């Protein structure tokens, strides 16, 4: 476990995780653990998120005022914090999604010719 690898991973998550959180909250206010579960579940467990990294991301989004937080009670009647999208966050989600689509499309276009060449 070298420090260099850790650093790479953080960079990979930055932004992407934010986008996933925003997308999850689109369905309604959710508490921390449930957000992590939802991301895992919706991505068919492909994305193995280190759950801890959720918290810096949530705080980052709160600081940017894209989401807000509210005290409440969870399903099993415990004190819990519910995170929800703000109007600004909703707008940002559209922007971020289209950005992501563009990026994914661009990367796909770059990678596809390479695949074709390697096949024959």
């Amino acid at each position, binding site marked *: *476990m070298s*420090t260099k690898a*850790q650093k790479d991973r953080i960079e990979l998550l930055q932004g992407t995780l934010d986008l996933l959180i925003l997308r999850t909250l689109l369905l309604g206010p959710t508490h921390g*653990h449930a957000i992590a579960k939802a991301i895992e579940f919706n991505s068919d467990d492909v994305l193995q998120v*280190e*759950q*801890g990294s959720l918290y*810096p991301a949530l*705080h980052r989004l709160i600081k940017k005022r894209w989401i807000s937080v509210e005290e409440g009670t969870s399903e099993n009647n*415990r004190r819990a914090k519910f995170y929800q999208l703000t109007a600004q966050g909703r707008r940002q989600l559209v922007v971020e999604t289209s950005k992501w689509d563009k990026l994914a499309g661009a990367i796909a276009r770059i990678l596809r010719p390479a695949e074709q060449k390697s096949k024959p």
Partner: protein
Amino acid sequence: MNRRQRMLHDLDQDIRDHIEVETQDNIARGMSPEEARYAALRKFGNVTRVKEETREVWSLVWLEQLLQDIRLGLRMLRKSPGFTAVAILTLALGIGANTAIFSVINGVLLSPLPYKDPQQLVVIQEHDSLPNVLEIQKQVRAFSQGGGINVQRMDYTGGTEPVQLRVGLIDAAFLELLGVQPMLGRIISPAEDVQGGPRLAMVTHHFWQNFLGSDPRAIGNTIHLGGNSYTVIGVMPASFAPPMEHADVFVSLWAGDPGTAADRSVHSLHTYWRLKEGVTLAQAQSEMAAFDRRLAEQYPAEERERRTKLVPLHEWLVGDVRPALLVLFGAVGLVLLIACANFASLLMVRAVAGRQELVIRAALGAGRGRLIRKTLTESTLLSVLGGAAGLLFAKWGTSMLLALRPEQLERLSGINMDTRVLLFVLVLSVLTGIVFGMVPACIAARADVAEALKESGRSTTASSMGHKIRKILVTSELAVALVLLVGAGLLIKGFSRLRSMNPGFNSANVMTMYLQLPTTRYREIPKQTQFRREVLARVNSLPGLEAAMVTDIPLGGNYVGHRLVIDGRPPVAVGGEPIVQTLTVMGNYFRVMQIPLRAGRDFTPMDREGQPRVAVLNEEMVREFFPHENPIGKRIGWAGDAGPPQWMTVIGVVADVKHSGLNQPTDPAVYTPFAQNDERWKRFMTLVIRAGDLSPGLVEDVKKQIWSVDSQIPVSDVHPMDELIAVSLAQQRFNMLLLGLFAALALILAAVGIYGAMSYSVNQRRHEIGIRTALGAQGWDVLRLVLKDGAKIALFGIIFGIAGALALTRLMASLLFEVKPTDPATFAAVAILLALVALAACYIPARRAMRVDPMVTLRYE
């Protein structure tokens, strides 16, 4: 509670809840509680780091971390006081020396001159006469203003004892040009600065304090200068002084010396000019060239040889000292480099030693950047502390520089620690810490955690790399020290050459004092001659001394030249005659000064008024003008006199005297007797006295004899001849002492560097040495093993140092006297010195290595 505090307030609780929920989920999936909790924790990741990163979202992270690093750093430094002290002292020496020299450079080269728009001011290198100055003011368009000054000594008789003052004879435009606002009263107006104008005086602040009792109503007072009375109309501010000249009082040239003011051929004024906005020096120079041509056509007898050269004032003032200061600054920069190399190698040792700690921090999740930053904070902390200590050294160093300063660095009085100097120290310290902390920091942070933890303690890779870098550092230190030593060696050699130059006279046991007769009472030459005879007779009546007189003593800074004609030679165009130095003497001047007579005879009391006029030449004069003939009996005279020349017969030849400085060539010179003097303006003389001992009592006795002839004659510039020689060498001595000091500092630092590196290496190799000893190696073998290592470093250091010195010493060629910048003897001597010091520095650790007890080391391992 602000947003940040509120958000972070229950972060711990959130995280605990999260893990709890996950654990419950896991239990629900059928795991044992213990297993469930472990899985939840693993899935969550590093709790501490999550908290840290979350906190970072909300904080000014860098600031918080910086403060944290500084606190940590200070704690670490306190924990190892030895290391801290050595590191700070090393840097303090380097930074202190740099700061001291920089404050000199700042004061002398960088600060603007204290005049209005000083960048527009230029100097005409040649002196000029007032009629010509007035023409330039009228005709030359390149200048908006300009004026001149000539300082003459006049006696002031208002005090208890007659004193001699320096009176600046000026034209009205001079003070206006410099933009000086009088502190009291006013300055002279152009309408008053005319032939027959009123006698008005503007006094300096210094004069006002000393002679006018700082009286705020001093304006309107009358003072007596050179036998005339002047009305005080203004007092200058304390900050004001002419750029080059020293003066106590300023009066109009018309009032102070009307004869000179009216005479186009007497070029007495040193002139300063202000370039008009947008006019370049070159434009002004070419306009002056055209002016020179016009003037030469108009007045061929006086102005035939005009070659006006303009020099920017600042360059004129500092041109002489700039090369020396820059060389010193370069040298002191090299000292800092050595200090920094030592500093870096200290840090390196520490970085290697402290690697375990860093590795643990990395294992706990510290990022690499963070680790580098932490190490850098520590090194910068040290360097800033070093800088602060360096300021103390610098303060002490500058006062030492001030005490040593030669006259050419008079502007040094204005040096102090201003903001620019403080900024310089700050930038220097921080840069030192960062740049020289970088390599050790990177080495430390390269640590591969898993690898390092396995290694546990006896590290190999990082430390061997560190050791290699240290060797490079020490080698460069030795090389740089060699460059400095060569520089210092060259200066020392040049200085000793200069010191051992034969000045042409024997300065030991000679006292000199300057006398000047006032025009009012000694206008006529016979009265002057009578005074001189009388004074000499009375002084010579004192026991145990012999006295004589001369117009200008060697190294006294004064020089009079006349245009020479030789009887029987084809005539030279008017104004084109060669100029030779002229000296007038009375008494046994050559015997008192012990200037050897080479041919013919000395003057005798018979060579007096009414007798055939005679002259004695110096050898240079004979070489130049009588190379293949016997000069004795030849007749010479001065050009420019009305009517036929008054021929003087050459009666003797004396040895050359270094009149203008030991490093200056000797000019052809003619000595004539005062008794046959026909120039009224030669009202001044220097008494030279050779005595068994030069006690203050002697000076008092001589003064009494002078005042018994005329109690109103001031006696000034009382100096032993030896002192004049010392003063003339001051600049060279200053350069030599400073560079020598820096070189010594460099040598010590480099010796400490190589000593440190070798001690460390011996320590690292204890194990190996122990085994070797166990296998039968003798003390001598071990010694050789260690010394070989040190010798290799020293050898490379010397080779690179010689290469560097060959490249750099030519920059100081202008500071050297009769020594080539590549003087092989100096290079060899310095290389040997450095090798010896390096080996001595290695010898101590080598001795320690010899005493290594194999049993102890092997068991210890």
